[in-house]
């Protein structure tokens, strides 16, 4: 049961930047060619040469920026709430076998339910306010953090625990001073995975619920009638960029905070 969702990344971001830029440029090139040659319906999949200027335009558009901010804010809030629930939850589940046995059936039942499938139900119950999309995103973002925290405790070195205990460290202090820091890199990996999930759930909820301000709603409105496909695509690319930037940022944070974990990772 010792597997972890994703390995904590130890590669610093800097060396991979050129390669990733080449990949991105390649993607845009294929997209441009496919669109220009009519390989895909040009009317809907506008070429990057149109979408990129539309993006620049959007970044100067106040209505769009507000929508973007609403989405990012909801995602971040959801992520923070998910961390506050899942990290203590994972610590408890990971360190008290009895609680773990009692809870795992419920957890294994709830986890596979896609939060997107809960959107209609949630909209009925809590309406179209921001709390709905936040609640749904929390639900989706909980699991990677919970499981990574829990499994990280399985990997906890018993000698660390014995050393701490021999110096008179109590049970709770062992949890906060030993278990938590040694699980931290895995928790952060969970957070990284969860950001993408939270963002996807927030945008999906906005797509569904007309009244919820955000990137999803903006895209939906631009899409109606098919008149502003360049804006639809520009908004979509920007959503992707937000996810990419958050992921890269969290990877960097990981490399910076958890340099100590790198030699350990290499050794195993």
């Amino acid at each position, binding site marked *: 049961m010792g597997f972890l969702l994703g390995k904590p990344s130890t590669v610093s971001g800097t060396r991979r930047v050129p390669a990733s830029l080449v990949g991105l440029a390649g993607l845009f090139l294929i997209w441009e060619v496919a669109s220009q040659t009519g390989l895909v319906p040009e009317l809907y999949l506008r070429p990057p040469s149109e979408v990129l200027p539309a993006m620049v335009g959007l970044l100067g558009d106040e209505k769009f920026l507000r929508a973007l901010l609403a989405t990012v804010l909801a995602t971040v809030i959801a992520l923070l709430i998910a961390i506050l629930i899942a990290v203590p939850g994972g610590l408890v589940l990971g360190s008290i076998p009895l609680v773990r046995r009692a809870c795992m059936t419920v957890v294994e039942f709830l986890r596979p339910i896609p939060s997107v499938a809960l959107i209609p139900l949630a909209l009925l119950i809590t309406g179209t306010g921001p709390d709905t999309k936040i609640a749904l995103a929390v639900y989706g973002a909980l699991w990677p953090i919970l499981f990574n925290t829990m499994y990280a405790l399985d990997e906890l070195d018993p000698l660390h625990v014995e050393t701490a205990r021999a110096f*008179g460290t109590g049970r709770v202090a062992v949890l906060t001073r*030993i278990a938590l820091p040694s699980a931290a890199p895995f928790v952060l990996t969970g957070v990284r995975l969860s950001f993408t999930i939270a963002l996807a759930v927030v945008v999906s909820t906005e797509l569904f619920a007309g009244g919820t301000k955000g990137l999803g709603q903006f895209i939906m409105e631009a899409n109606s009638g098919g008149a502003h496909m360049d804006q639809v695509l520009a908004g979509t690319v920007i959503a992707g960029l937000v996810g990419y930037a958050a992921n890269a940022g969290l990877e960097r944070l990981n490399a910076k905070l*958890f340099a100590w974990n790198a030699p350990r990772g290499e050794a195993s």
Partner: protein
Amino acid sequence: MVRTMLDVADLGHTYQAKDGAHDAIDGLTFTVEAGELVCVVGPSGCGKSTLLRSISGLIRPTRGTVSLHGTPVDGVPADLAVVFQDYSRSLFPWLTVQRNVEFPLRELSKAERTARAGEALAAVGLENAGRKYPWQLSGGMQQRVAIARALAYRPALLLMDEPFASVDAQTRFELEDLLLRVRREQDTTVLLVTHDIDESVYLGDRVLVLSKSPARVVAALDVGLGEKRDQITTRSSDEFVELRAKVAGLLQSAPTAETVH
């Protein structure tokens, strides 16, 4: 002042495993006086770690009693420190060397913690390594940090579980001499277990020889080598050679578990 620091009486421990019970130690009785350095020597798997884990309260022994300066041990005693063999796993990789050494000093003020850790690191010759991380140090240096951490805690009793078994021979000699120096300077009481006969004689004021599993004390030998010891002259002295032969003989002829039962 209590002269007897550690009193182990009729100590026994049986591990309950899925495939039946396993007697790791049985009927162990001995004392360690304040200021003494006692070496316990026994073959691998005879129960040395089990003995130390029982004394340090990490496991609750199934039989017998352990008293630390007159107080029966129940749970982890406050004034005891342990140095394990596996330094790379007993130091906390997420903490700097300085923070590792400060780890057990939580009750002290920040200034006192810093001062104590600094002193302890200086005592093991690592005054400039405080800001490094354990994995940036060599194995021998890491074990010095673990020793410094134990010393900073100023334990009444220092337990060491094969502390030099994982370093190369040259480093082992250095660390052995370091231990002899700091215990003299700080008047620490030490109980050290090892499977290395020479090491037990070189370090100990007294050597307790254990039988094969379940461990019992077969002999307690006084080591008359004096305070000042030297890796070359001491090890080639008649007294040393005689003692190590005696310990080796005892280990060889020690009754095994089968002949005891």
